[in-house]
């Protein structure tokens, strides 16, 4: 097995470290992400470039990256050399976008240790640098991305204009090319039906809110991604500070809502949490959507300090491990949606049982 294959195997065999539930304020924020978009000055943007130009981009970017400290320990995966299932796994782990995951053109990803830092090559922009961190760590993630970007800029000519900043394929990224986002968990605000008011105020200050997949009543496992919208007219630091400020306000509102839940509806809340836990612990067939919603309730219970539930890390990891490609890899082969539900239930039971230290 080649070194690259072995290291990819290592990545696939362990859950994403940013799901470890150990970062600051992990009871409210699952993860923090900073993404920087960059292009090489002499080459047309990815969608207009020819195959051999894109190969040149892969070659010069990976060569430049190998001389940096930030990517010293990383390895290059070429998308056309990665099978469709493994590509989908990278998408489920938030390492690769759907666009990069198609594997048809010369594209790749440089993966750093612990998945903290990664670099997509020839996505919508030639370079998409991504720093991921567990919990609420905007400043930390920015420091990592900023440093890596400086090192890369030392070796590569980025498309840049003094007036408009970093020039990107889509004008929504022009300027800093930065998207900073935090994935916040807001179950109490949803339960108390105050979420729309909160989201509205977040969007009014120019931030963007998106969810994970969701259904009418219980929206997307109560996980919301809050990110900056504008990239011109604001420095990276200003964007991050404004996101930081707003995210803290949202978190504070959620904390107060959780306190009210415990004060006014302790039994109902505990009942909801333990019913969710019971379903996860003993189910025999379950959809990914249901797992995410049930995990949300258990997550709430953990945050409220209810004893006897699984550690936060185990619950966070289920979000990714129960996705279709991860499941199919774990259970060795292609599965129909119905089969997946059965294997998913098995995986969830086993992981919760292991956390309890008993048999499934």
């Amino acid at each position, binding site marked *: 097995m080649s070194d690259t294959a072995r290291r990819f195997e290592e990545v696939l065999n362990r859950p994403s470290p940013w799901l470890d539930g150990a970062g600051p304020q992990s009871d409210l924020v699952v993860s923090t992400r900073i993404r920087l978009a960059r292009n090489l000055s002499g080459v047309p*943007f990815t969608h207009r470039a020819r195959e051999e130009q894109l190969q040149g981009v892969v070659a010069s970017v990976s060569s*430049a990256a190998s001389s940096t400290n930030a990517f010293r320990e990383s390895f290059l995966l070429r998308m056309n050399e990665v099978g469709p299932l493994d590509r989908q796994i990278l998408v489920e782990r938030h390492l690769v976008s759907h666009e990069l995951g198609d594997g048809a053109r010369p594209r790749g990803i440089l993966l750093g240790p612990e998945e903290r830092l990664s670099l997509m090559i020839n996505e919508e922009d030639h370079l998409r640098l991504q720093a991921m961190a567990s919990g609420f760590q905007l400043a930390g993630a920015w420091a990592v991305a900023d440093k890596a970007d400086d090192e890369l800029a*030392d070796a590569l000519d980025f498309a840049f204009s003094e007036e408009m900043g970093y020039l990107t394929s*889509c004008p929504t990224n022009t300027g800093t090319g930065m998207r900073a986002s935090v994935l916040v968990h807001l179950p109490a605000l949803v339960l108390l039906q105050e979420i729309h008011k909160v989201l509205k105020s977040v969007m009014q200050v120019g931030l963007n809110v998106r969810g994970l997949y969701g259904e009418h009543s219980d929206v997307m496992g109560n996980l919301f991604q809050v990110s900056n919208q504008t990239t*011109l*007219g604001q420095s990276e630091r200003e964007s991050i500070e404004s996101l930081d400020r707003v995210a803290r306000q949202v978190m504070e509102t959620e904390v107060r809502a959780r306190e009210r839940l415990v004060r006014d509806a302790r039994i109902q809340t505990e009942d909801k949490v333990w019913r969710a836990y019971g379903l996860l612990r003993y189910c025999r067939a379950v959809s990914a959507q249901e797992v995410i919603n049930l995990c949300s309730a258990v997550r709430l219970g953990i945050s409220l300090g209810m004893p006897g539930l699984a550690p936060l890390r185990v619950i966070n990891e289920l979000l990714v491990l129960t996705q279709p490609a991860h499941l199919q890899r774990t259970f060795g082969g292609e599965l129909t949606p119905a089969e997946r539900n059965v294997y998913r239930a098995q995986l969830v039971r086993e992981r919760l049982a292991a956390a309890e230290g008993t048999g499934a």
Partner: protein
Amino acid sequence: MLCQICGKNPATVHFTEIHDNKMSELHVCERCAEEKGLHSEPAKQKFDIAAVFADVMNSMTTTEEERVGHVQCPRCGLLYSAFKETGRLGCAECYSAFQFQLRPLLRRIHGDTRHKGKTPARDGEVVSIARQVQRLYDELQRAVEREEFERAAEVRDEIKRLEEQEKAPRAGVERSK
């Protein structure tokens, strides 16, 4: 519930999107989700650029719009009308070629047109091997375009030499190459 696209299979993939304070929902089966490139991951962060274009263009007359549509980037050949359709620019040069059209667009999107963030940290003294290699790739490209194959071969050899030089001290260690 049945898939909202094919209307045949049960909807097992659910999307909720919040945009401009409005929440919209989509319920589809896995096959349609795959076919439509929908994915149950929040990768769809695309600004609704069509709406912004529509807004900017509404303020123009038809002839004006036609004239603007024919503006072309001298480097990559992209027409402004094509940019309008896809929302993607073709190369860095497009920013200069379409600057008069882009400024109002950027203002609409960001509320500003001036960059206030960082500038690339350029190492003025030592041009790293990687940057030399990148420049040579650009040159190789141009040589091939002009069908100067002798020059292209020279450049290719030079790239090879530099890449080997770069690799040499780390022989035996496979990393990010």
